[in-house]
């Protein structure tokens, strides 16, 4: 059920360069959401822009959720400046959620702050004591906030080689797959469009099941504006949310789609 809840800011910390994690007390949303879902945030009561800011949830525990974001515009600047105890208007939980992560061996891939919904799944898998591989890609070491620890299945990559593996997320993905049966493996990914499209095409070429969480501009987040579409590869069964079968709504049919289901991650 979609809720409109006023959350309370618990804390904000800078976890990497210009990258922040904010914890919000939201008893209702935090206890009713599943990893992969997102919330739509009103950055401030007098928000003059027309759209809320959709954000994936990076953790949910004890009535508290967290979001991870880079300060890039007015909305994220306001979020960074939230004071402890501030009230924040949230709509959520929104969208579908990760599934099939206990049926197959999960490889989790996140790119930059796009790793948020992947981290929520990572925490959940560790809570369930399910073995997994976590890969995070970034441009350089300043954007990373997880230790590069291949022995524990945590691989960090950088475009400039300043931390972990020099290259993109496909390098550790290929490494991790060396000892795995493709049929019994499933990839879960979220990050910038170029990274996701590379992972999408790789997964299709290898015949590995792969779910991708897409990100795009949204006006509402709950299906009334019809603004956040992705084109399906083949015409699906008519989706109730987009009214038809050529496009899916990222907010309601997604944000998570199977790699084979969509035409491209470039929206």
């Amino acid at each position, binding site marked *: *059920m*979609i*809720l*409109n809840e006023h959350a309370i800011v618990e804390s904000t910390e800078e976890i990497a360069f210009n990258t922040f994690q904010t914890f919000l007390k939201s008893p209702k949303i935090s206890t009713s959401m599943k990893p992969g879902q997102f919330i739509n945030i*009103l950055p401030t009561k007098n*928000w*003059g*822009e*027309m*759209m*809320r800011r959709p954000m994936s949830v990076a953790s949910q525990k004890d009535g508290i959720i967290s979001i991870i974001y880079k300060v890039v515009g007015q909305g994220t600047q306001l979020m960074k400046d939230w004071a402890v105890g501030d009230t924040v208007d949230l*709509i959520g939980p929104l969208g579908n959620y990760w599934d099939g992560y206990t049926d197959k061996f999960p490889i989790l891939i996140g790119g930059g702050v796009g790793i948020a919904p992947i981290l929520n799944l990572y925490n959940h898998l560790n809570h369930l004591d399910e073995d997994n591989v976590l890969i995070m890609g970034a441009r350089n070491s300043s954007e990373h906030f997880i230790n590069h620890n291949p022995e524990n299945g945590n691989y960090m990559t950088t475009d400039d080689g300043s931390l972990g593996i020099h290259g993109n997320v496909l390098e550790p993905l290929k490494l991790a797959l060396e000892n795995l049966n493709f049929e019994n493996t499933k990839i879960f990914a979220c990050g910038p469009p170029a990274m996701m499209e590379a992972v999408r095409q790789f997964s299709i070429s290898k015949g590995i099941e792969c779910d991708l969480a897409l990100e*795009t*501009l949204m*006006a*509402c987040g*709950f*299906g*009334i*504006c*019809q*603004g*956040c*579409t*992705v*084109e399906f590869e083949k015409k699906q069964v008519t989706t109730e949310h*987009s*009214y*038809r*079968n*050529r*496009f899916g709504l990222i907010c309601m049919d997604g944000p998570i789609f199977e790699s084979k289901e969509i035409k491209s991650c470039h*929206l």
Partner: protein
Amino acid sequence: MSSVKFGNINFSSPILVASGTYGYGHETASMVDVNGIGGIVTKSVTRHPREGNPPPRIAETTSGMLNSIGLANVGVNEYCKSKLPYLNKLNTKIIINIAGTAVEDYVETLQILETAGGNHVGYEINISCPNVKEGGMSFGVSAKMTESLTAELRKYTSKLLIMKLSPNVTSIEEIALGAENGGADAVSAINTLVGMGIDIKTRKMKINTTFGGLSGPAIKPVALANIYKVFKAVRIPIIGLGGISCVEDVIEFILAGADLVQIGTLNYKEPGIAIRLGHELDNYCKNNNLSSIHDLKGLAEPH
């Protein structure tokens, strides 16, 4: 209080939600008691289903947004089957927005709806969608065609018949007169303004169809000017819309000549805004000893 009689219909609040900004009324049900809204104008329905336009369909602009959804909808047959039963259960007034390409499209769609057993109180006719070639815009820019389409539809319904006017015309007064002469019960004004945006990094248009419809507070002064012009030109009631975001805006629209108003773009940010503004309007009436907000219709004075 702020209830308003419109035609022979009593609206519990003069604040409705605009077509295309509130789906089919069920989407917000877990957050908002939609029965507290004066009325819901449902998303444009066409004779046959429409996929809508490819992405990107929306862009944020200063105090507004561009959209080019392309009239994505289930088509009138499916609308009757899957949307009307839910709408029939609501205690708010339902107005069905109809879009079309040719006179026959509008007529057939309306005829199907007339026999579908809906509790809706009327139809809003979209002759002003700027985002699809066949969005009825050819009607909306011609007073003659507006009049003949209105007259044709008038033959088939005794429910409220409201023509939705475009601001993308030389003289909105002439189009409004065409609607009035054709037998419309009311006009609603305004639909979105044609706009465009460019991403300077990619040098691509922000909207897939190049042009989109601009809405939000950015267009409020344009809406007010058009409503005032229409108010001066016709005797039939007016539903005002275009960037309303607060109770002061509602009052301004009524002073300019509107009988009812619709909230559009702001629903996305605050799905319960129509109800909140309804309460604020009640308070305004109380504090100003108004028996009805309608008493303020068209009272704006020129200098």
